[in-house]
C-alpha cells in the first residue's frame, strides 16, 4: 500500500499540473512525459515513468484542446499507469514487467477517459456558475469575475485530486487481478506492450503526413536504419537528432519554396 503522505503529495502535484493541460497557461509542463517522469522519480524509478510517459505522449499527441472537444486526459493516463506500475513492482518483484506495464497502462487509459468525461461535466457546471453571477458582473461587480475564475480552477483541481486519490487506492485490487491472470494473457499483454510505441509513431506519421514528406520519410528511415546497422548502434543520439532536424528543415524549406516559386 502506498504511504499516505506520498499519495497526498503525488495527487496534489499531479492535480496542479493537470491545470496546465487546458485551464492555465498551457506551457507544456503537464505533458504525459513530464508527469510520468515526475511520478517515476518520486516513487524511485524514473526510467519506468519516462518509458510510460513517452509512449502515452505520442499516442495521444493528436488531442488538441480546441473548441468544444474534450480529449481524455493523457497526463492522467501517464501518471496513473506509472504510479500503479511502480507500486505493484515494489509489492511483488516477481511479476512480468512488460505485461505489468501494459496492464497498468490499460488502467491508466480507463482513468484518463473518466477524467475527460468529468471535464465535460465540469464545463457544464461552469455554465450554471456563470448564469448565477452574470447579473452581478453586469452591474460592474468585478469580484464576481474573479470568483468564477477561482471557483472553476478550484473545482477542477479538487475533482482531479480526489479522482487520483480514489483510483490510486485501488492498487491492491489491480494487483490481485494481475496475479490471477493466466500465463497466456500475461504473455499477450507483454506482446501488446511491445507494440504500443508503434501506435505513437503511426499517430505522428498520420498527423504530419504530406505527399512529399511521406516519400522522404521512407528514404530517411531506410538510410538511418542502414547507418544504425553499420555502426552497430554506436551513434551520438543528440548529434544525430540535431543533424537530421537541421537537414530536414533545410530540405523542406528548399522543397516548399522552390515549388512556391514555380507555381508563382
Amino acid at each position, binding site marked *: 500500500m502506498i504511504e499516505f503522505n506520498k499519495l497526498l503529495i503525488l495527487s496534489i502535484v499531479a492535480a496542479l499540473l493537470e491545470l496546465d493541460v487546458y485551464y492555465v497557461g498551457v506551457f507544456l509542463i503537464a505533458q504525459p512525459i513530464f508527469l510520468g517522469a515526475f511520478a517515476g522519480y518520486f516513487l524511485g524509478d524514473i526510467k519506468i515513468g519516462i518509458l510510460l510517459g513517452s509512449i502515452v505522449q505520442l499516442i495521444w499527441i493528436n488531442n488538441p484542446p480546441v473548441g468544444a472537444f474534450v480529449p481524455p486526459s493523457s497526463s492522467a493516463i501517464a501518471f496513473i499507469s506509472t504510479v500503479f506500475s511502480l507500486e505493484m513492482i515494489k509489492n511483488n518483484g516477481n511479476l512480468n514487467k512488460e505485461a505489468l506495464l501494459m496492464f497498468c497502462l490499460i488502467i491508466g487509459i480507463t482513468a484518463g477517459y473518466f477524467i475527460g468525461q468529468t471535464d465535460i461535466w465540469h464545463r457544464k457546471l461552469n455554465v450554471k456558475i456563470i448564469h448565477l453571477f452574470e447579473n452581478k458582473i453586469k452591474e460592474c461587480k468585478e469580484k464576481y469575475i474573479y470568483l468564477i*475564475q477561482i471557483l472553476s480552477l478550484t473545482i477542477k483541481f479538487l475533482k482531479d485530486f480526489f479522482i487520483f486519490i480514489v483510483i490510486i487506492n485501488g492498487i491492491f485490487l489491480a494487483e490481485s487481478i494481475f496475479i490471477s491472470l493466466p500465463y497466456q494473457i500475461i504473455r499477450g499483454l507483454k*506482446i501488446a506492450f511491445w507494440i504500443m510505441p508503434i501506435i505513437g509513431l503511426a499517430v505522428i506519421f498520420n498527423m504530419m503526413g504530406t505527399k512529399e514528406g511521406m516519400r522522404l520519410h521512407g528514404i530517411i528511415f531506410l538510410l538511418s536504419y542502414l547507418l544504425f546497422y553499420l555502426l552497430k548502434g554506436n551513434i551520438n543520439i543528440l548529434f544525430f537528432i540535431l543533424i537530421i532536424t537541421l537537414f530536414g528543415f533545410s530540405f523542406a524549406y528548399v522543397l516548399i519554396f522552390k515549388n512556391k516559386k514555380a507555381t508563382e
Partner: protein
Amino acid sequence: MKKINWLDIFMGGFKLNFLQSSWNFERLQNIGFLFSIYLILKKIYKNNIELLKKAIERHIDFFNTNIFFASAVFGMIVRLEEELDNSDAHKKHTEIESAKIGVMGPLAAIGDSIFWSTIKPFALLIGCGFTYLMGFTPESFFYGFGLSVIIFNLPRIIIKYYLLIKSYYDYNNLFLLLQKIKFQYIVKVIKIAALFLLGAIMAGFFYQKNLNLIPVRLFDNVLLIVIFIFITIALKKKTVISHIIIAIVIFSILLSYLIT
C-alpha cells in the same frame, strides 16, 4: 487621448494565460476574456458607469479563439474601446462586436493549425525521439523534454506578445501582416521536417527493439513495419485510438494462445 499605457496592455496579455480557466459550453472563453480586459475597461470608462456596463455586456458574450492568438483580438479590441467615439454607444457596441467576431474565427484557424497540429507535435516528437533512442534514461528526458519545452514556448511567447503589441499600436495593418506571413508554407516545412525526424527515430528505435518472439532481428523489424502500416491505415480510416489499443490487446492475447 491615451487612457491606458503599455503596462496595462502587457498585464492584460499576461492575464490571457487564464483565458480558458472557466471555459463553458455556452459562451466558451467569455469569462476568461472579460477577466483579461476588465481592468482596462475600468480605466477607459472610469467616468461613465453606463458605458462600462455596456462594454461588460459585449465582452461577457461568446468568445472563442486560439489561446495564443487571442492576444491579437485583445489588442485590437482594447484599441477600439479606447479610440471609438462614445457619443453613439449603440454604434460603438455594434462595431466592436463585429470586429471581434470577424477576427476570432480566422485567428483560431491559423493558431490551431500552427500550434496544436504542428509546433506542439513537432516539439514533443523531438522530446520523445530522445527518450526512444537513448533508452528512456534521465539524460534522454533532460535533453528531450527540455528541448520540447523550449521549441514550443519560444514561438508561443514571441507570437503572442508580438501580436499583442502589433494589434494595439497598428491594428489596421494586422490582417495585412497575417496575410503576408505564409502560415501554410511554415506548417508544411515543419511537417516535412517532422517526417524526416520520424524516419530517423523509427529506424533507431526499430534497430534497438527486439521482442525475441522468434530470435531473428529482421523478423522483428519486418513485423514492426507491418504493424505500423496496419495502424496507419486504421488511423487514416478515422479509427479511434482506444479502439486500436483494444484491438491490439485482443490480437496479442489471441496470438499468445496460438503460440502455446
